């Protein structure tokens, strides 16, 4: 078991249990009562910690090395998954996966960022940081889904789009921009779920949909707390403060109307019970798709645009100059 720094009290309790059991095995003493007490105190401590998570702690949980990634959820939730590779232009991006699958027997298209599960795979998956090829592969698959009238599901988990030389050369910005534009216009239902890290344009590049959901221990922001700290505080030491200020948790994001839904995680985070988490996600996807199918394609697109158009905060003063065309002499 891997403990995060704020789980220290839990780690201590687990250590105590371990020592107790060792002692009992050695000395043949019955410690079951003490173990039971410790177990109870573990549950209590866990609830206390998880009921009061700070934004930075959620960021830590979103990056937990044992956290389930896209391919795990695909395996647990869908059947007949056939992975499809390549953007048909340059190469196959291993940081973005996707393919055909069945959800409760119904054909869907799934795409998502993929992080590596061990040191070697982390390199191969480029730590979940996609190149333009990844975004273009995702778009290619989404376009195919649209052609065959299959709902699209995207799973978001990235520390950002890859800031590399080739990525810039091949148009990282254009690839992301194109996806935003095309996803707005998709005729089929699009559901996006942030399952881990939702960093900036790299996340948004597969994040425009009818329903956008965040899992409980994830974050979604214009910049990572670390980078924000280094730019605005000119030091790496303010990441906790930046995490607070950025309002990047599911609570903030849903209260702002920037995400539509919240998907609960087990106490202890998604990694503490991945199967249960996958089940919750499956239920969410199933319900969301059936609800969206009731809406006509045109209405879905209109609603998507309306939802996005409302995002923003500003003051609007009433003035004589509100830009109404009637006041413009230039128009003839």
């Amino acid at each position, binding site marked *: 078991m891997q403990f995060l720094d704020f789980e220290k009290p839990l780690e201590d309790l687990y250590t105590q249990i371990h020592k107790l059991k060792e002692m009992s095995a050695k000395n043949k003493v019955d410690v079951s009562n003490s173990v039971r007490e410790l177990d109870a105190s573990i549950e209590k401590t866990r609830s206390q910690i998880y009921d009061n998570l700070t934004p930075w702690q959620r960021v830590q949980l979103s990056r937990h090395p044992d956290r389930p990634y896209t391919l795990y959820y695909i395996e647990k939730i869908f059947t007949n998954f056939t992975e499809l590779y390549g953007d048909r232009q340059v190469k196959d991006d291993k940081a973005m996966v996707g393919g055909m699958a069945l959800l409760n027997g119904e054909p869907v298209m799934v795409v998502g960022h993929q992080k590596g599960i061990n040191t070697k795979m982390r390199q191969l998956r480029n730590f979940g940081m996609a190149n333009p090829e990844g975004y273009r592969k995702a778009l290619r698959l989404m376009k195919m889904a649209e052609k065959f009238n299959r709902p699209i599901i995207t799973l978001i988990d990235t520390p950002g789009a890859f800031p590399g*030389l080739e990525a810039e050369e091949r148009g990282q910005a254009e690839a992301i921009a194109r996806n*935003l534009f095309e996803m707005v216009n998709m005729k089929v239902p699009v559901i996006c779920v942030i399952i881990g890290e939702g960093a*900036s344009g790299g996340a948004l590049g597969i994040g425009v949909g009818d329903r956008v959901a965040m899992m409980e221990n994830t974050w979604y922001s214009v910049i990572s707390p670390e980078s924000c700290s280094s730019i605005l505080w000119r030091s790496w030491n303010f990441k906790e403060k930046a995490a607070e200020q950025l309002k990047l948790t599911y609570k903030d994001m849903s209260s702002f*109307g*920037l995400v539509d839904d919240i998907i609960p995680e087990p106490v202890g985070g998604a990694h503490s019970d991945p199967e249960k988490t996958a089940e919750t996600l499956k239920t969410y996807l199933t319900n969301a798709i059936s609800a969206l199918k009731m809406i006509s394609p045109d209405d879905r697109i209109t609603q998507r645009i309306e939802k996005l158009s409302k995002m923003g905060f500003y003051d*609007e003063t009433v003035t004589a100059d509100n*830009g109404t065309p009637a006041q413009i002499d230039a128009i003839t």
Partner: protein
Amino acid sequence: MSSTWFRRSKKGILTTTEEKKETPDGLWHKCPQCKTTATVKELHDNLYICHKCNYHNRINAKEYFEILFDNNEYKLLFENIVPKDFLGFVDMKPYGARIEEAQKSTGLKDAMTVGHGKMNEKDFVVACMNFNFIGGSMGSVVGEKISRAIDYCIKNKLPLMVISKSGGARMMESAFSLMQMAKTAAKLTQLAKAQLPYISLMTDPTTGGVTASYAMLGDINIAEPNALICFAGPRVIKETIKKDLPAGFQRSEFLLEHGFLDFIADRKILKQKLTTVLEWYMIEPAGTH
């Protein structure tokens, strides 16, 4: 839910004419690139281009409007949309204070100014970013003004140009800033459906979320010479790959070579080029009714 974000106020009637600070002709300007000096008047008359090395000095909406709109006549649109510190964001300074300071020093409301005027006698809407306002960063006001400019163009059947010049997202608006990328892209789908042309002009610098949304979504994407145009900035890339970057990397000419620009327009020929291009879009085809 979003209606709470709009606070209407009867106060604060805004004027469209900004106060213009006259600078004496005698003042000298030193070219940041070749260090050649020119008087402020010479620079203005040469459209803020260095007469020696062709360096395009960074200018803002007011200067672009003067260059593009006939007789420097235009109407400012949506000046009543002003920024606010909704999140109460505080880093080394409160965001609210940053806004006030920027407004004071620039005389602008935010980093985007929208103007409607005539360019060689044809109606044209130009939304231009101001780099001097918090680094031309994209916050809610920038997105909302583009959004309204698009509605305005659709209603009046007008072509739109956005002049980008931006350090990227406005971090102090966090995810709201991020969502302006999706919002502007969404609105651009409506402009596209209305078959109205959208020209994106990228100027030095165009970076981050601005590049990765409306700047790269033009029917034609054009740029001024030698402008930095990128998603991730050169410093970040250098840190990532731990190698020196090739000369000219992420500059206009580099992007043209890699297929991401339709052409590069020197500021001196910009108005004529745009006029030619817009004519192609806007002219009624003969014999079709």
